[in-house]
């Protein structure tokens, strides 16, 4: 049962050097043709941040700050705390799920575990994420926020995010190779999840009925994004809501178990399905 999970994780650990080096090649190859090179990793998010801030912050909210349990916060900052993890989560899910289909032809001729492919995409995207996180901290500092003791749990939430992405892309990349329609569906779903997560608006602000907010909570990305805000704003410890904690980890573990089973079962025949 857990043997397959262990096998997949062990493959990642045994080849961790390879993962990092392949990820760096991935980044290099992606921006080679561009004059501005890897600067695009920051220009793209900057453009998106400004348009979301303009539409949601100025257009819809009229510049009102967001009321949280830790007091009012400028919408711009509140949004950044959600958007920056999102800028990492969304491409990782889409590229990670597509990675096996894209590369299996090339790697199957070598002694190379296919289960590394989604992880390479996740690691490749994480460089941008960590740099943006540091930029966010600088912005917060300029606005006069000082980190509280709650800030240490950011390590926990980053771990939770990586665990979820690893489990999800492992399962997803297998399905996506077998059934190509899934990738299309996934792309639309990811676009939807952006609006169903507390990234651009706060479902708990009383604009929608409470039961709607409760159901929206079931999305594991909701847990991660709210966790990031809890750490930055010092609202709550992650163990203060044990039910939500168990739900998230049970969810992640289940897709990890199913994902690694499915991956190991089908990986010998991936090429036949291309």
């Amino acid at each position: 049962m857990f043997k397959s999970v262990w096998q997949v994780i062990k493959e990642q650990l045994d080849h961790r050097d390879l993962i990092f080096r392949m990820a760096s090649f991935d980044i290099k190859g992606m921006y080679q043709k561009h004059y501005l090179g890897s600067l695009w990793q920051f220009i793209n998010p900057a453009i998106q941040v400004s348009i979301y801030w303009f539409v949601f912050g100025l257009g819809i909210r009229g510049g009102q700050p967001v009321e949280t349990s830790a007091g009012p916060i400028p919408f711009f900052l509140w949004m950044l705390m959600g958007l920056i993890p999102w800028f990492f989560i969304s491409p990782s899910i889409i590229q990670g799920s597509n990675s096996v289909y894209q590369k299996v032809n090339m790697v199957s001729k070598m002694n190379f575990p296919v289960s590394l492919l989604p992880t390479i995409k996740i690691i490749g995207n994480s460089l941008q994420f960590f740099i943006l996180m540091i930029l966010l901290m600088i912005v917060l500092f300029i606005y006069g926020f000082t980190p509280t003791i709650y800030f240490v749990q950011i390590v926990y939430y980053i771990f939770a995010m990586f665990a979820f992405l690893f489990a999800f892309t492992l399962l997803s990349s297998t399905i996506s190779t077998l059934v190509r329609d899934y990738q299309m569906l996934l792309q639309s779903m990811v676009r939807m999840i952006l609006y169903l997560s507390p990234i651009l608006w706060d479902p708990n602000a009383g604009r929608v009925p409470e039961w709607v907010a409760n159901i929206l909570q079931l999305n594991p990305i909701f847990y991660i994004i709210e966790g990031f805000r809890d750490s930055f704003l010092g609202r709550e410890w992650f163990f203060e809501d044990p039910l939500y904690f168990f739900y998230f980890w049970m969810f992640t573990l289940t897709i990890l178990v199913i994902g690694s089973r499915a991956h190991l079962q089908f990986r010998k025949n991936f090429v036949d399905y291309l």
Partner: protein
Amino acid sequence: MTKQLKVEFKNVYKAFEMHAKQKEKLLELFSIERRKQRKEFVAVKDVSFKVYEGESVGIVGLNGSGKSTISNMLAQVIQPTSGEITINGETNLIAISAGLNNNLTGLENIKLKCMMHGMNDEEIDRLTPDIIEFAEIGDYIKQPVKNYSSGMRSRLGFAISVHTDPDVLVIDEALSVGDSTFAQRCLEKMDEFKKRGKTIFFISHSAAQVKSFCEKAMWIHYGEMKMIGSSDEVQKEYQKFISYFNKLSAKEKKEYKAKMLSSQISTVDNEIVKRPEVVKKRNIRHLLASGLMLSIVAFLGALLGLGY
């Protein structure tokens, strides 16, 4: 002194399913019992052979006779439908479309491919000058691969593959792109391989290359092993067939090909292939466990969704 067995094929079959619809492919995936109610194209039919270390085997045959399917199975890219393949050591397949990343430079491709073969930085640095020299790419090595000519690309692919030091080398018409001077150098390199006791499979349409280089040859004819033996004999028979075939009229040629192709298509009628009992039990156990975990998630989710 007995030679070590390198590669063994035992009654190997490879059938490709001819699905009428994508939907059938999906249904096949989820059926508990494997139902064989479909058309199959048997690309490789009951092929058995043994190859020992230090041998080089030429594979000849017409287009579409299953040579590339065999080479893919040798490289373990695809799995046989039934039968057993034993390979002692690491195989490396060199095909025309060698897996190079077009956006990266030649140098980066060398590094990437060596890395994927599990080499460390030291080994890569040591091998890189050899590879560049062998491929004769010169200053172009710092250019992206997409700017290379097809000959340069195949030379680079070949150079990387031979330097990764595989135990079994499978060359699938990779030499036909390079000019004869490069082909000559490759043959020399392969001779060196042979002397070191490596095994080489050589797929080529060039009768001269096969004759001069391989002592053994096999002739694959529409999925079946027509002949295996010394290179000279096989070549002689193969050439006999070719000249016989070329003498046929256009209509006869067409008929012959159609007849051979239809013999490779089989319709297996509604035969149910039972999965082994152990696999079935394991699958059921896994299904139960996954179901249990999913229901725990659903239960926790229901609690959360109802707002507890």
